[in-house]
């Protein structure tokens, strides 16, 4: 093989390499035209199309990413705002509840105190009234009872009104004194 290369080289040096052969020119021209058409009509349009597509894809992706970023930021802002709203809302509700609770407790306390006072007052009034009525009935009853008893003891009518009255009064005074002593003890 190498020999053939050598001989080919020798052959080409025996010709003048600067004088082109006609067939050489013709076929070189044909090859050039074929290649030119191939690149011009086939390869380069496809490459151009590809480059356009690629540029478009990149731009599209960038636009898409921008869009997504913008949306995310908007959403974040919205959430933050909502969160702040919710916080203030919750604070407000808690405050109201606390105030309401205080008010309710205070009201309940007032009502209870008033009720207690009322109950106490009415009980005292009732007790007083009962005591008075008992005192009155007791006094009259005790008077007649004492007179009867005294009449029985003495065995005679107490005709002397003055005497009788004095006796009854003295008795009643004693009774009251003893009752007062008993009340003080109680």
């Amino acid at each position, binding site marked *: 093989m190498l020999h053939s290369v050598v001989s080919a080289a020798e052959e080409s040096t025996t010709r003048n390499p600067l004088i082109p052969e006609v067939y050489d020119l013709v076929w*070189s021209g044909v090859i050039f035209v074929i290649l030119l058409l191939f690149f011009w009509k086939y390869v380069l349009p496809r490459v151009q199309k*590809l480059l356009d597509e690629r540029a478009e894809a990149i731009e599209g992706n960038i636009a898409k990413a921008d869009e997504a970023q913008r949306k995310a930021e908007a959403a974040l802002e919205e959430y933050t705002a909502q969160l702040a709203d919710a916080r203030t809302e919750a604070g407000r509700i808690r405050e109201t509840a606390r105030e309401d609770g205080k008010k309710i407790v205070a009201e309940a306390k007032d009502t209870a105190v008033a009720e207690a006072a009322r109950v106490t007052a009415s009980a005292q009034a009732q007790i007083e009234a009962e005591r008075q009525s008992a005192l009155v009935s007791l006094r009259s009853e005790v008077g007649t009872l004492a007179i009867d008893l005294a009449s029985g003891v003495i065995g005679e009518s107490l005709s002397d009104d003055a005497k009788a009255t004095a006796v009854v009064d003295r008795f009643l005074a004693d009774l009251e004194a003893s009752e007062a002593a008993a009340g003080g003890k109680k």
Partner: protein
Amino acid sequence: MMVRIIAIIALLVIFWLGTRRMRVVPGRFQSLVEMGLDLVRVNISDDLLGKKDGKRFLPILTTMFFMILFMNLTGIFPGLNIAGTSVIGVPFVLAAISYVTFIYAGVKKSPANFFKNALFPAGVPWPVYFIVTPIEFISTFIIRPVTLTLRLLMNMLVGHMLLVLCFSATWFFLFSAPGWFKLMGVGTFAFGFAFTVFEILVAVLQAYVFTVLTAVYIQLAVAEEH
């Protein structure tokens, strides 16, 4: 000729596979193909010509770059071993296309401006035009295509000869040389190896240079002023 057809078939297959199912998110192979195409589109046509003109001339620049690149690379492929561009046909045809393209670009933009800028550079006192104009004419309309052709042709031709020299010397030293001369073969092989790697660089570089120069010529032709 066979070598060129193989290179072109490889080129067509690679780019056909690479662009058959284009995805927005590229796979490994597609990334590689895109990288190659980006080199021409971004580094050559957009940088030198701007977006608008760059797009107009992109097909021709892309074709030039990959045609030269693949034909250059055949020079270091085992079994092919000769660069498609090391015979004058391809460089000549490509240089002619570059020539026609930049003149077309200039004339299309504004014929008067193009020839005025090319032949009568602004800011020069008028008597100097007697000297400048012929020089500009020769450099723009004669030297440019010739240098494009020769630069590519000679780079690839010389690279090929260097490789042939190194490897045939290796062969000779290893199998035909007497005694200690066989050791020389190791040295020449190392050189051959180094030049093979170097040829890869040259292949890419020459494809790049050819395309960049074409772009520059177009750019000069469509520019308002120099």
